[in-house]
């Protein structure tokens, strides 16, 4: 992934939840902020280029905070896609947040934390913070895990808001060639994240089918192309994966 391994040995103890949150925030302000910041600069630039204003850009980053869905939303909006289709496409683009939340929660859960806190912290779940928490939290005392994750992710959240505004401002100020470079950050960032993340056979297949079907289906049914692509490519890859697993009699993860 984008973040380098941090030396978190078994039994790391920051002393208190407060300290854990601060350490998390400080780590987030390193490499993760640079990579994610660059991507949100790209998002800010995209929003500017599409003709929306800076408050739209900031509102999207503050409330959505899952870049692929945000980019899908802005691109589809710019094409004049119906609201229902946009909402479904954004929902499906971000479906990966479900397995991420399900796997993160057992790790950060601690006694005496009210349920509501988990639902609030859940808004901060996104790829970069999730990867860091899954890697570092198991080594921390239980009471320091949620603070560490929240410190890390909320620092990133602040960085992405600043980066969004910066990208919006830059897009109007720098030469057009540079603006194009900023907007281009989004697709290649996602592409490389996807490539870096692909390990399981059926998901690699889903990504390959999706990459082929996306552009093709757009030529036939532009409004529903993304939904159609995701469900078709995903179901096909899933079925092939199951079939293959069944035939070989064991898992191939």
């Amino acid at each position, binding site marked *: 992934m984008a973040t380098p391994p941090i030396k978190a040995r078994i039994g790391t103890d920051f002393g208190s939840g407060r300290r854990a949150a601060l350490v998390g925030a400080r780590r987030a302000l390193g490499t993760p902020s640079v990579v994610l910041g660059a991507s949100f600069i790209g998002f800010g630039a995209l929003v500017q280029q599409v003709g929306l204003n800076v408050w739209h850009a900031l509102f999207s980053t503050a409330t959505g905070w899952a870049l692929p*869905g945000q980019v899908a939303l802005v691109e589809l909006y710019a094409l004049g896609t119906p609201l229902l289709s946009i909402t479904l496409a954004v929902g499906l683009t971000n479906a990966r947040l479900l397995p991420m939340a399900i796997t993160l929660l057992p790790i950060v859960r601690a006694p005496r934390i009210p349920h509501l806190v988990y639902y609030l912290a859940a808004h901060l779940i996104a790829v970069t913070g999730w990867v860091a928490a899954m890697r570092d939290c198991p080594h921390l005392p239980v009471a320091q895990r949620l603070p560490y994750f929240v410190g890390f992710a909320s620092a990133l959240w602040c960085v992405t808001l600043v980066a969004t505004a910066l990208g919006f401002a830059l897009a109007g100020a720098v030469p057009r060639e540079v603006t194009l470079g900023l907007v281009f950050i989004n697709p290649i960032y996602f592409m490389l*994240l996807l490539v870096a993340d692909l390990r399981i056979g059926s998901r690699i297949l889903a990504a390959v089918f999706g990459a082929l079907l996306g552009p093709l289906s757009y030529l036939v049914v532009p409004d529903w192309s993304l939904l159609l692509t995701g469900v078709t490519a995903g179901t096909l890859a899933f079925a092939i994966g199951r079939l293959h697993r069944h035939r070989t009699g064991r898992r191939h993860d």
Partner: protein
Amino acid sequence: MTDGTVSEAGIWWPFVVMIAGAAATYVWRALGVALSGRIDPEGPAFDWVACVAYGLLAGLIARMILQPSGPLADVALAHRAIATAAAVAAFWLLRRSVMLGVGAGAVTLVVLVLLSGAPG
């Protein structure tokens, strides 16, 4: 693309779209919190959701590069393709660094556009 004449509805409508999008995003996070500990992350339902998510994301990325709707539509397809290849090459050659790959791709695109004269 909007054409500069943004009406009153044109300013508020994007917020409505974004609230819908934010709800469609948050619902997964909340559902994850509610389901954690009760659903098997290794099970088939999970696997299918993940496959659909990956397929959709890959389709979105391919479309953003091959059929961009925004400003990238002004960049020649060959330039987009070369810049994408440069990003992948840099990623593999430079210790699978996403940051260096993204940097190489963006810089390549800017250089190609500059060399070919101003875009549309």
